[in-house]
């Protein structure tokens, strides 16, 4: 029973990772790629670690997986902020389809 639930959680995680990587390849500019990839891949890996927790139950390995989940969330989101800000200051252009840019006045 536990094994079945773990396999289902890990499969869902890998499916989310596939969506994220398709977004990484297909979307047109850097900010959109960062959005798709960060969201999907972070939640996918958290789902895989949740599957590890279900598979091992309460114990040494399970608690390690439980500790890894909040670390993954915080580091992935903060790294995404830093990359987006750095890319804007570097001068990366936004896609042609963009309609609004409030940040330009703030940087000057």
């Amino acid at each position: 029973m536990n094994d079945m639930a773990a396999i289902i959680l890990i499969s869902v995680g890998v499916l989310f990772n596939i969506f994220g990587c398709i977004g990484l390849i297909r979307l047109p500019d850097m900010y959109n790629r960062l959005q798709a990839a960060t969201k999907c891949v972070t939640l996918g890996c958290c789902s895989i670690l949740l599957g590890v927790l279900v598979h091992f139950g309460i114990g040494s390995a399970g608690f390690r997986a439980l500790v890894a989940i909040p670390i993954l969330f915080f580091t992935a989101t903060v790294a995404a902020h830093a990359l987006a800000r750095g890319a804007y200051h570097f001068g990366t252009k936004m896609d042609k389809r963009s309609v609004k840019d409030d940040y330009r006045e703030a940087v000057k």
Partner: protein
Amino acid sequence: MTSFLNILLYIQIALCAACLYRIIRGPTIPDRMVGIDIFGILVVGICGIITVQTGKAFILDIGIAWVILSFIGTLTLAKYLSGKKLNE
């Protein structure tokens, strides 16, 4: 069950190859850095799947250390992008 986990592991490694495609092909430097960041997160998923396969808990420690190191690396790259000194 083990063969199914093997298939999932191969899919995950193929996704790492997709990140490598973005790193090699990316038209600008920030695109490559996004690829590096996502690569670091995907490796943690690989560590989780290998832990379930082999039943050895220490592989998860490798995953945690990998997350933190990849985070520091991404922060350094972002600092480099925004054109500041590293001690700022």
